[in-house]
């Protein structure tokens, strides 16, 4: 697994509950979430996110970002190379601040391919 501190910067943004990084095959690469989000949950979540990406990319264009809106939460997903960076937030997260923080983390993740 990648070092989780690479993701920690996302928590600087208000209303961010945590984040995770999924590999091209749906495997969990890194996680910065409260303990209630056990690693084994991602055995389902990872492959489903990959399938969702494949669904959207079926017509040729690469997926840039994905946003899932739930009653009280949002899941923001960003393609980082072959990986997917997921950020769990409250519904009222500051979107521009999150976008900036996500850009920085994505850059850092892309710069550490050897550890993935």
């Amino acid at each position: 697994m990648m070092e989780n501190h690479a993701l920690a910067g996302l928590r600087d943004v208000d209303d961010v509950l945590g984040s995770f990084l999924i590999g091209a095959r749906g495997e969990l690469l890194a996680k910065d979430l409260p303990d209630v989000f056990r690693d084994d949950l991602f055995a389902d979540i990872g492959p489903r996110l990959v399938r969702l990406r494949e669904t959207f990319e079926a017509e040729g264009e690469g997926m840039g970002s994905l946003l899932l809106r739930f009653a009280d939460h949002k899941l923001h997903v960003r393609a980082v190379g072959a990986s997917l960076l997921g950020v769990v937030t409250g519904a009222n997260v500051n979107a521009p601040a999150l976008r900036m923080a996500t850009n920085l983390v994505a850059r850092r993740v892309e710069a550490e391919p050897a550890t993935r």
Partner: protein
Amino acid sequence: MTPTHGFRANLTASLADLVQLECLARSTHVIRVKSNDDVGYLYFQNGQIVHAMSPNGVGESAALEILGWEDGSFEPCSAGWLSTATITMSWQSLLMRAATARDEAQRDRAKGRTVLNFPRERSQAVTPMPEKPPLPLSTYPRPQALTTSQSPPSSQSTGAPSGGGIERAVRLEADGKVLSTRGETGELAAVTAYATRLGALIGDALGMEGLRAVECIAGSTRRLFYVEKNGNLIGLEARTDVDLGPLRDKLGL
């Protein structure tokens, strides 16, 4: 409201686990939580936490305060019932927020920083609750449901520029039957049904309820999928330079 039958147990578990048991059992009663010198009350109605009182407040802040306690006791009690609910957030969300706050407090402690308590609502002083039978959950305020038009979204209804805007759209029943379309929909119906299903499954696994919308940006194309109040699904596709702001705002995106 204290259960008069059933097993009594004396076990050691986390407060989050005990709360989950109550919620999954769709309990309707009041639980008294004691931790050191503090006492708090959690009000369960059909498996939802609808109210909480702690030494420092009521409502969500009280529930979060109680859920942050690390040890103590947990028992049903016959506290007076509430006349109005003060918590509309789902129990999964409350547990998630409590877990996040606990994690952050632990990190702060590890770093030697001062740990702040949950917001204190002194202005909402704890007062005795009237003895009343529980209200049906449907009478409590819930998050406002989405309202949408009855036809696939047009550029006018979404606020998109006239003449441009949405290139294709489809409306489906929850079982996948296509109700109406706009433009050459191709695989859009299938993508709509599958994406919303996968989104809901991902949310379930993360403890996030009530999928409202999925938005994907791929290249110069924005795809938006959402669930209408009646359970129908809408899928639409537009170029990314089309202003879907009003619709996105309505969906809370």
